[in-house]
């Protein structure tokens, strides 16, 4: 009988809390449809790794090191940044830069909405050492792969908490952004119409764009050239016109496969002893700060621009500069329609949203420039 129940005595209440957290993530994924492709594997993984002597993670048992599948996957795909980078090929293949190329000025809002990252860097530095603070700040990139790569390169001890915060807040964009936008804009501003004037974009431009972005970003932040490069490689596959089958595979099969492994592997960093710390709560709070100040940065920048522009822009589109794609663009579009049912901001906000994707990767690269190897 003792043989049957010998592990139950090793069970800790902290592991029960982690099961509850895993359960909440699974609930949010299924019932609330919040980033289900990631929150569900992370949630299930959180349960999987929180057993006494769980065989899913590498553990020292009776003096010998027993390798666990999730730890092996972690070493194979996350500690060397392979999974997030491969996922970026899929994301790049999904993104249509058309609305942005048709109106390149929109990109400036993508830059402004990275303010939350740098504000959070300063805030987080009050609680953590600089490398951890920088890794936490990149939650504001609203972009999981960038957060993973930066946290990994900067050797942060809080990867699990950073990942959970990054993906949870991305899913919460429709809840976080509207109150911030409403607080910073008047009804009159939210009703400003921006007629969409599409311009023809040649295929040559669409092909050259990802190559040029890679070159420019690589010159400025070589440490992160793989991030931009993989994203743009995916986009080049999409736009070149001769690799449609590869583009489709990258968008669907490849992205789905990597997402499955990425989510459940991240959970290997959610063992109770690593996760249940007061630092995790602080990181969750700082992640929220990053998203709020990203949104505020974009909106306030648009309002400042309006002081000088003859043809006013709707300041809400500044909020779409956060790279949570396409949620943020849709949030702005819906808010525009709510104020005026003829105010269609979708194309502009999606254009700003994809520029946020580029700008967030650049911001992540700059963070690496500042702190990597120091």
């Amino acid at each position, binding site marked *: 009988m003792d043989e049957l129940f010998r592990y139950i005595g090793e069970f800790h209440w902290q592991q029960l809390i982690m099961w509850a957290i895993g359960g909440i993530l699974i609930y949010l994924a299924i019932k609330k449809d919040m980033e289900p492709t990631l929150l569900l594997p992370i949630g299930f993984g959180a349960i999987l790794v929180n057993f006494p002597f769980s065989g899913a993670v590498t553990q020292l048992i009776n003096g010998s090191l027993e390798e666990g599948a999730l730890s092996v996957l972690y070493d194979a795909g996350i500690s060397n940044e392979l999974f997030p980078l491969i996922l970026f090929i899929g994301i790049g293949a999904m993104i249509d830069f058309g609305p942005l190329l048709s109106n390149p000025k929109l990109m400036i809002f993508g*830059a402004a909405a990275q303010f939350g990252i740098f504000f959070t*860097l300063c805030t987080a530095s009050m609680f953590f050492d600089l490398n951890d603070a920088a890794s936490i700040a990149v939650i504001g990139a609203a972009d999981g792969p960038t957060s993973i790569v930066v946290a990994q390169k900067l050797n942060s001890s809080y990867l699990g908490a950073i990942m959970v915060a990054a993906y949870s807040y991305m899913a919460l964009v429709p809840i976080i952004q509207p109150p911030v936008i409403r607080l910073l804009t008047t009804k009159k501003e939210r009703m400003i119409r921006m007629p969409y004037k599409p*311009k023809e974009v040649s295929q040559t431009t669409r092909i050259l764009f990802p190559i040029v972005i890679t070159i420019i970003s690589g010159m400025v932040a070589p440490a992160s050239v793989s991030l931009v490069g993989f994203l743009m490689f995916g986009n080049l596959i999409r736009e070149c016109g001769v690799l449609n089958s590869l583009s489709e595979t990258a968008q669907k099969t490849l992205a789905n496969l990597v997402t499955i492994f990425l989510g459940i592997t991240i959970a290997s960093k959610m063992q109770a002893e690593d996760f249940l710390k007061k630092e995790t709560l602080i990181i969750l709070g700082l992640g929220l700060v990053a998203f709020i100040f990203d949104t505020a940065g974009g909106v306030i920048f648009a309002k400042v621009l309006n002081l000088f522009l003859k043809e006013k822009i709707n300041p809400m589109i500044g909020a779409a500069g956060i790279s949570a794609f396409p949620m943020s663009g849709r949030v702005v579009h819906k808010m525009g329609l709510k104020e005026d049912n003829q105010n269609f901001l979708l194309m502009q906000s999606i254009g700003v949203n994809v520029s946020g994707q580029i700008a967030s990767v*650049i*911001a992540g690269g*700059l963070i690496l*420039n500042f702190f990597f190897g120091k």
Partner: protein
Amino acid sequence: MNPKAFFDNLYYMGMGMLGVFLVIGVIIVVTFLLNWMTKPKKNRK
């Protein structure tokens, strides 16, 4: 908690935002150029 660290690291905030705006600025200019160069010649102004 070390509130002084916030002010000590404002330098990174300034440099970071400047860096993002500069790189995006260059990308905007290059994109305008790409659009202009790849337009049919009769449409160029």
